[in-house]
């Protein structure tokens, strides 16, 4: 009856005996044994040389490599996102030449390996010994310099990573823009907003919800891909540890050092991504789900509540 709740009493829980999931317990037990064995082997195998890991983890050369990795990630991701937005908007242009250029760019960059592109940028001097800016078709030059001076290994690394990332980001941004309901654009236009205003204020913020998760993945991907620049003699994290172990022959512990740092920063990025996704998810669900921290607090409060009730 609809009025049953009105008397304020809690309804009695169904006094059923829960189903026993024996299979789950068995699987859980097996996994625990395997994990324990893994931990035992990792901590007792002297060849891991954990003391060496500890010795190098915070060494100056490794930290310099970490800084280089972060610089490369931030700059090439920034370049990639900017380029991605521009390419995505170009791709949707009514001008066939503009959208064609964008398509060609993505086709070329996605169709060739990043490693090859990086090598290409580092050998650019063989193709264009001087890099100049001036009037096209051999007119007077405004400024310029030797390719090897302008395109240092660091610049080559940024160009390789950033231009490559731009192609992938273009597709992500385009998917995001396409995901926004046409009605949003129409109502913005009907209010007198221009195409640019509509894009910036209405479409892109809503596209963010679709763009952010894959962009987080891309950032993590780029962070790890910075290790490729070791082939063009940029001293990133991987190259830094390689340089050390080429002298000390302690390959395993030094590669572990590199992995520890990659894991630290991919973890930080994943956490950041979670909160950014939450931010752009507002307005789509009626109530945001609690963060892990909020969930933890809630759990503690609930346990305290139970303890207090049992104590009473």
């Amino acid at each position, binding site marked *: 009856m609809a009025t049953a709740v009105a008397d304020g009493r809690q309804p009695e829980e169904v006094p059923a005996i829960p189903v026993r999931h024996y299979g789950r317990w068995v699987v859980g037990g097996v996994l625990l044994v395997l994990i324990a064995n893994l931990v035992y082997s990792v901590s007792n195998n002297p060849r891991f040389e954990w003391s060496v890991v500890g010795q190098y983890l915070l060494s100056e050369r490794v930290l310099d490599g970490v800084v280089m990795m972060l610089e490369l990630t931030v700059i090439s991701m920034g370049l990639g996102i900017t380029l991605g937005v521009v390419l995505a908007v170009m791709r949707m242009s009514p001008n066939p030449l503009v959208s064609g250029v964008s398509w060609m760019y993505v086709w070329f960059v996605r169709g060739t390996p990043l490693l090859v592109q990086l090598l290409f940028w580092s050998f650019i001097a063989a193709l264009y010994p001087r890099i100049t800016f001036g009037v096209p078709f051999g007119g007077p030059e405004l400024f310029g310099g030797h390719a090897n001076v302008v395109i240092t290994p660091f610049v080559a690394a940024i160009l390789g990573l950033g231009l490559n990332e731009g192609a992938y980001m273009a597709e992500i941004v385009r998917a995001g823009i396409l995901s926004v*309901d046409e*009605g*949003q654009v*129409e*109502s*913005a*236009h*009907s*209010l*007198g*907003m*221009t*195409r640019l*205003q509509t894009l910036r*204020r*209405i479409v892109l*913020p*809503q596209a963010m919800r679709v763009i952010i998760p894959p962009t987080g993945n891309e950032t993590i991907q780029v962070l790890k891909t910075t290790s490729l620049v070791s082939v063009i003699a940029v001293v990133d994290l991987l190259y830094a540890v390689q340089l050390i172990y080429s002298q000390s022959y302690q390959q395993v512990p030094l590669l572990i050092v590199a992995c520890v740092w990659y894991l630290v920063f991919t973890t930080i990025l994943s956490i950041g991504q979670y909160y950014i996704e939450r931010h*752009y998810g*507002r*307005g*789509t*669900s*009626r109530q945001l789900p609690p963060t892990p921290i909020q969930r933890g607090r809630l759990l503690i409060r609930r346990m305290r509540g139970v303890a207090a009730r049992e104590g009473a």
Partner: protein
Amino acid sequence: MTAVPMVRAEGVHKSFGPLEVLKGITLEVAAGEVMCLLGPSGSGKSTFLRCINHLEKINAGRLWVDGELVGYRESGDKIYELRDSEVARKRTEIGVVFQRFNLFSHMTALENVIEAPVRVKKVPRAQAVKEAHELLARVGLPEKAAAYPAQLSGGQQQRVAIARALAMRPKLMLFDEPTSALDPELVGDVLDAMRDLARQGMTMVVVTHEIGFAREVGDTLVFMDEGVVVETGHPRAVLANPRHDRTIAFLSKVL
């Protein structure tokens, strides 16, 4: 001197590819008039409404709003297409309320209402916020300023959409089946808001299936079918004594 009609259409044609949706619409809406467009789905009512603020480009004929061509500029004996920015500026004078509300889902009700005044008309933010609160109160939602569209019912969203359109101080309001996507019990609030607006003298063109609203609030009822105007007249007259067979057939189904 006769007053310039708010909307004047002469032989308006519109095709989507091979499909001719409007086959020569001629009508006039006087300033302060409430015109209701009625007709079976696919009759071109919504398309005509969308032509009025150039969301759709017309293929033939002429369409004027307040004496100015929609989407074009006449100079001598030539007609020039307007730039996007000029079209945008003209749209600021025409409010549109859509069937599916189309509130900006990443903005609160208040942000939805102030967005265009602040960005397009460059109204100072404080003033826009003050006016937005007044408008939300006017449509009966003074306490929902901070709510996101997903937290509002359909009827509430549609009333915010009306407030958003009014914030631009339009001289003409277009309603495209504003209550068709609503649960029956929510229709009344939206119609009340529209009734208020009509009472204050707003010029309105309303595509609707709400016969009761058309009868009570409308000054003119236009019955459309298959891209042409079949019958025009005072709502009570048309509804009580439809002259055309197609009108009779339609009304017998919906009444």
